[in-house]
């Protein structure tokens, strides 16, 4: 029997009983729809993570005050838990030491932040992260400046009360008025707005990076927070390939400076982009696994439905099978026909499911704002899984049909 005739026969067989075909398709369609939506959402989430890692900066690492065992720590960006920093051992001198001794480090940006602070102008106020920083901050973050000037070395040396504010802060405090040169209060301390940051977007932790107030590090430590320690140091490495080596060097240097005995828990943490990626992906992976299990169950149920209906179809079509055998069909022709039908029906169901999944993607995006990404892998997975379900579900019914003796089948 020729292949093209086999496909034609299968399609005609399906067309002869459209209701049955529809029911078989429906089960697979649901499974593939779920699979498509899940995989697209997963791909979208993954893409967003990668985007955040890019925002974080691939050639940067972060030294955080507070070891892994410390209870309260500074939130990472604003996505973490804003808490009161209790670790007081990371000093501005540590940053200086890194700058002096770590050859792989290109730029070092120490910063301080104590939770969120209240910034106000006239009768308006806005609670937002306030950072004490040095000029290097802009370099290590590749942070755009819209107008005016950022924090300078001179500002730090002279403990000036100047601020550079993000576009969200501008909108919240000033509306349509020009903030340049205006005096804002940060925790009751007046600062002159000297610069306006460009749009930076969303942080790795999901926070709004445009809701930031930057003031000189020294001014912040002495006048706003009244502390003598840092929250963290952001380090840009010279060569991306040295990332882990630089992290190890900094780790050794800080342990020595902090007089930590071997084995003693550190009072700081170093995070690299690889670690962040791994962490977020692990979180996403668990979620994806759950959804893929759901889609898998839907596909198994769909497969059982197809297998059942195919079995019914085989016994309903005994006469047709007997006739085909009588006019010269070999057992393998019959087996092929029913396998082709079950595979055809699941493949069609799968294609319909992919179509519905694309609609589902749009709905998901519209309802939740979650990014979705339809890649060729998603389409391939849909086609592959639906075909596989068809083959597996059709195997037994097809074998049963092929085993019928022509004369018995005709007699019924």
């Amino acid at each position, binding site marked *: *029997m*020729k292949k093209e*005739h086999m496909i034609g*026969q299968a399609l*005609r067989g399906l*067309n*002869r009983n459209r209701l049955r075909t529809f029911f078989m398709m429906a089960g697979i369609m649901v499974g593939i729809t779920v699979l498509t939506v899940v995989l697209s959402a997963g791909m979208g989430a993954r893409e967003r993570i990668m985007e955040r890692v890019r925002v974080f900066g691939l050639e940067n690492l972060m030294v955080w005050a507070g070891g892994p065992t410390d209870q309260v720590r500074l939130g990472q960006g604003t996505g973490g838990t804003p808490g009161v920093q209790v670790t007081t051992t990371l000093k501005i001198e540590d940053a200086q030491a890194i700058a002096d001794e770590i050859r792989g480090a290109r730029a070092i940006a120490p910063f301080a932040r104590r939770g969120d602070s209240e910034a106000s102008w006239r009768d308006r106020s806005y609670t937002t992260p306030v950072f004490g920083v040095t000029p290097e901050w802009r370099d290590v973050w590749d942070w755009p400046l819209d107008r005016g000037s950022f924090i300078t070395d001179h500002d730090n040396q002279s403990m000036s009360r100047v601020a550079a504010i993000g576009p969200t802060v501008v909108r919240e405090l000033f509306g349509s008025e020009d903030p340049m040169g205006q005096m804002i209060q940060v925790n009751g301390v007046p600062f002159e707005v000297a610069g306006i940051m460009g749009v930076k977007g969303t942080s790795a932790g999901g926070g709004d990076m445009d809701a930031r107030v930057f003031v000189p590090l020294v001014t912040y430590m002495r006048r706003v927070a009244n502390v003598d320690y840092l929250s963290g140091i952001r380090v840009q490495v010279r060569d991306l390939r040295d990332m882990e080596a630089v992290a190890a060097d900094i780790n050794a240097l800080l342990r020595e400076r902090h007089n930590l005995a071997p084995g003693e828990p550190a009072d700081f943490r170093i995070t690299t982009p690889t670690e962040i990626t791994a962490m977020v992906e692990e979180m996403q992976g668990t979620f994806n696994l759950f959804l893929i299990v759901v889609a898998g169950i839907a596909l198994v149920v769909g497969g059982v439905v197809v297998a059942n209906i195919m079995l019914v179809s085989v016994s309903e079509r005994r*006469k*047709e099978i*007997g*006739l*085909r*055998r*009588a*006019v*010269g*069909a*070999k*057992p*393998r*022709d019959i087996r092929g026909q029913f396998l082709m039908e079950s595979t055809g029906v699941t493949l069609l169901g799968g294609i319909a499911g992919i179509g519905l999944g694309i609609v589902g993607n749009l709905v998901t995006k519209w309802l939740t704002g979650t990014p979705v990404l339809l890649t060729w892998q998603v389409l391939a997975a849909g086609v592959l899984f639906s075909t596989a379900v068809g083959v597996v579900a059709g195997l037994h019914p097809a074998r049963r049909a092929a085993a019928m*003796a*022509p*004369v018995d089948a*005709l007699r019924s």
Partner: protein
Amino acid sequence: MEQALIEARELSRVYKKDDSAGVAALKGVSLEILKGEFVALVGASGSGKSTLMNLLGCLDRPTTGSVILDGKEVSGLDEDALAEVRNRKVGFVFQSFNLLPRTSALENVELPLLYTDRSDLRGPAREALEVVGFPAERFNHHPGELSGGQQQRVAIARALVNDPEILFADEPTGNLDSSSSEEIMALFTELNRRGRTVVLVTHDAKVARHAGRVLTMQDGQIVSDEANAAGNNTSQASNDPGADRQTPSPNAENQA
């Protein structure tokens, strides 16, 4: 003597029902059918005539004995080889037509061609429908839209489409009114006249009258083998057409 086209040797068929001893539907039947003969198998229901036809047509396997088609032993063939014999050597016509529902007349006739290595199915199918006198304007009609006689013509065209040497028909007029029956029998007669060997199962004496040789079955055995002068027989080796008497064949004598 000319070699028989169909030869049965001591055919028996026992239908086993679970653990019982089984029912012998056929008890050691031997016969020879020559090329071009028009043979009717008659007998009461349960006499074994359909069982015999199924065995001769390779639809079923004998419990013991052998079937030789065109000099070739077929009883021992595997499923695939039997399927090829059914596809090329024989054509079947059934009482209930057995057409695929919701499928055009043309596509029904194409069915046996599917199981060959031919690419063009349409051409031979059209030809076969024309041979059986099926109206061309109905080629695309479904069985449900056709009369019984027309459906049986489609079924005959399907049996003929691979140009088999032997045409088996099991009660082909059983579901037809008398005028359609006459037309269908005329068609079988015409096909036999053109050289096709026809083996027909019937319990209707009027139908059997068209055949040149009538085998009567009873209790799984052939009890008489008669030439029918009024019937048709294209075979040169048929019994003397002038003989008015009923002459049992040597095979029938063996059975008696």
